[in-house]
């Protein structure tokens, strides 16, 4: 066997991951993907080992719940054949490896910097001289938007090549807010520091990222996640999904200038978010999830409050979505806008709602279950058009589905048993991968420990990492004035990508 088969959140010794030569490695991993629509690359990264770079590639199989991990050692001075020329889904990962370690590829079609990491290999490449794709045409024109976002949310630069009002090409340049989170994970040794870092990977996916980190850490320490901890995390994840999806519906309504939808969804989102304040003392649900302990157990009193909130939420939400989806002027903006074809979805390996929008059944809750999802039968919401309408409908239906899950979950609340951290030291020389289905899609955290049990490598992959390219393809041949609504319907994270 030249690869190892893992399950989600399973710790294995690093030595058990077979090390193969690069050509075999390339054949193996591209072979996994090609012709298998149920498989995609969850993470592909490098780690420095004795002045060489060891590449780890993790391919997830949605049907068998397995993750195939293989590795290969490469030299930074050599030139290699790229995965990307065979499978497009490795594009971003190889650009990142190229940026961080200076590994050269001879047939990578788009070898541009990803995020300008502080420890990048070539310091001459700066954000100011990003090599944009450009044209010399008299007829076409370029429109540059950003890096200051019109709604002053997060920085990113969008360069459009347009033929009049029609977008021919969009290039997205990110990396403006690179904070070096992955290296901070190695520098900060305390578990609370690391949990706080995980919370701040993306401010809108606090539960998602912290859960991914916590499950990973517990697995690494050999701690069996107790039922009450898993219960709290699962519940919080679904509440987060409801809150953010509702907020997104509000934002989509703002972008099509539908004031009623915008203000009603905005109002509905607030009590759901505020429930976290009651639960853990922080609206943004910070400090709710911590490895190995349940600081804020979910009590029956909270369950009554949550039921009240959902009872008030559900009828208004249902009424408003019914209203929205029968409004002709709104439908004319949603339908056939920003279509991503099924071939593109497959070749890009998109995740989360950006995969489910076009008939791709990809949901970690089903494919690589974690926490309570091992016992719940999850039925992902799938749409078939890949347009803004599909993405908005997924949001609507996932909100309703999550409400159902929460109602079922809080019928029997487990007794809290773990108030304090009872974790042992992480196992030395281990490898672990943790996948979580956040509201935006699959979150992947990977860790490798050294011989002393200290973190040697911490790798984070936000769903936005794959999905930004889907947005760039979605807007092609659309009107430039439809870009904001396409963008909002994906609602990808800038800081989750930039790390």
């Amino acid at each position: 066997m030249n690869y190892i088969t893992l399950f989600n959140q399973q710790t294995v010794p690093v030595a058990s991951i077979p090390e193969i030569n690069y050509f075999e490695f390339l054949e193996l991993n591209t072979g996994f993907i090609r012709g298998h629509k149920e498989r995609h690359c969850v993470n592909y990264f490098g780690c420095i080992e004795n002045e060489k770079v060891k590449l780890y590639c993790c391919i997830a199989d949605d049907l068998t719940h397995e993750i195939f991990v293989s590795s290969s050692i490469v030299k930074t001075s050599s030139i290699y054949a790229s995965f990307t020329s065979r499978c497009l889904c490795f594009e971003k990962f190889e650009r990142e490896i190229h940026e961080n370690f200076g590994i050269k590829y001879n047939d990578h079609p788009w070898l541009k910097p990803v995020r300008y990491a502080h420890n990048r290999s070539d310091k001459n490449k700066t954000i100011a001289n990003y090599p944009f794709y450009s044209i010399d045409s008299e007829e076409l024109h370029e429109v540059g938007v950003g890096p200051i976002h019109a709604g002053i949310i997060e920085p990113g630069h969008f360069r459009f090549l347009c033929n009049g009002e029609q977008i021919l090409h969009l290039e997205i340049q990110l990396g403006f807010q690179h904070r070096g989170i992955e290296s901070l994970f190695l520098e900060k040794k305390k578990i609370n520091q690391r949990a706080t870092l995980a919370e701040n990977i993306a401010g809108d996916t606090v539960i998602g990222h912290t859960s991914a980190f916590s499950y990973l850490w517990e697995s690494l320490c050999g701690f069996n996640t107790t039922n009450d901890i898993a219960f709290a995390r699962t519940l919080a994840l679904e509440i987060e999904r409801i809150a953010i999806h509702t907020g997104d519906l509000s934002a989509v309504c703002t972008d099509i200038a539908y004031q009623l939808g915008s203000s009603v969804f905005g109002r509905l989102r607030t009590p759901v978010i505020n429930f976290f304040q009651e639960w853990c003392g922080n609206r943004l649900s910070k400090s709710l999830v911590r490895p190995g302990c349940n600081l804020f157990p979910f009590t029956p009193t909270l369950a009554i409050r949550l039921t009240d909130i959902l009872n008030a939420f559900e009828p208004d939400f249902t009424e408003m979505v019914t209203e929205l989806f029968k409004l002709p002027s709104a439908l004319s903006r949603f339908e056939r806008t920003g279509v991503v074809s099924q071939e593109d979805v497959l070749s890009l390996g998109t995740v989360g709602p950006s995969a489910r929008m076009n008939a791709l059944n990809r949901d970690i809750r089903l494919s690589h279950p974690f926490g309570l999802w091992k016992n719940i039968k999850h039925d992902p919401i799938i749409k078939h058009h890949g347009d803004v309408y599909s993405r908005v409908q997924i949001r609507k239906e996932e909100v309703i589905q999550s409400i159902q899950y929460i109602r079922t979950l809080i019928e029997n609340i487990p007794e809290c048993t773990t108030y304090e951290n009872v974790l042992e030291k992480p196992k030395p020389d281990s490898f672990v991968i943790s996948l979580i289905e956040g509201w935006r899609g699959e979150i992947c955290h990977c860790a490798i420990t050294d011989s002393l049990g200290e973190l040697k490598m911490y790798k984070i992959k936000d769903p936005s990492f794959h999905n930004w390219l889907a947005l760039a393809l979605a807007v092609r041949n659309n009107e430039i004035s439809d870009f904001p609504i396409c963008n909002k319907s994906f609602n990808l994270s800038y800081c989750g990508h930039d790390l």
Partner: protein
Amino acid sequence: MLSLLLILIAAAFFSGIIVRTKSIASGRKGPGVFQPIKDVIRLFKKGAVYSETTSIIFRIAPTIYFASVVMAILVIPFDESKGIISFKGDFIFFAYVLALGKFFNIIAAMDTGSSFEGMGASREALFSMFAEPAFFILMGSLALLTGHTSFQEIFYSLHVGSYISYAITTLATFVLIMITMIENSRMPIDDPKTHLELTMVHEVMILDNSGFDLGLILTTGYLKFAMYGALIVNLFIGMVPYQYSIPMFFIIQFIIAVVVGLIESFMARFRMGHNAQYIFALTSVSLLIFFGVLLVLEKFV
């Protein structure tokens, strides 16, 4: 003279009422009715900042834009009183003096050299171009019906006629309200509240204007709204005595403002590509009026 005064008063609260309607419709308290005027006064106290890439065009454009709308207001009659300027064919003057102001607005936007503003300018030019035939066919038909060619005489003699003239007035009101929305860049053509440059039409053209110039452009916008409102009011009141016609003026202006606010609250903006189609469809409604007039005049068998 009277119309100028009335329009100035209406302009003071027109935008405020739209904002207020929208706030109430979305369950918010919202700013006071005179907030837009207060904003403008604040802007008038400020200086303007000019980009280094702009030329004299950019500096004079806001003033010309303002002047053009004031000139256009001068020809609007009210009830029995003529506008300050009134002559045969003054509706053509009205349309083209506004076009002059718009022209300067467009080239000023191009002057900044920003790709956004160029896009906004091209959209605004296209939409105005499509709205023009609708206005002229409408006014031409009314001129044909009444046999006069100045605003005051047309409106004055419009109501002497039969029931058919009421049918024509209804259609004309529709066309004029839609032209008002297009010329003022309101929904469903343009979203005045958006913060996204890529979807803007009018707002993106004035992104580089600041301080006094911005105040002038905003004031012009308020005046323009009230001016079109006054035109619509004129369709309804023929020779009513002043004690009825003046309250009617304000009531109709108020209703128009509320309708605009409601449209903006309860529907989504059109897709940009559908706008041109939609605006051009107004011309066909105008043609309907034209054929209606021909029927009335028995010139159409």
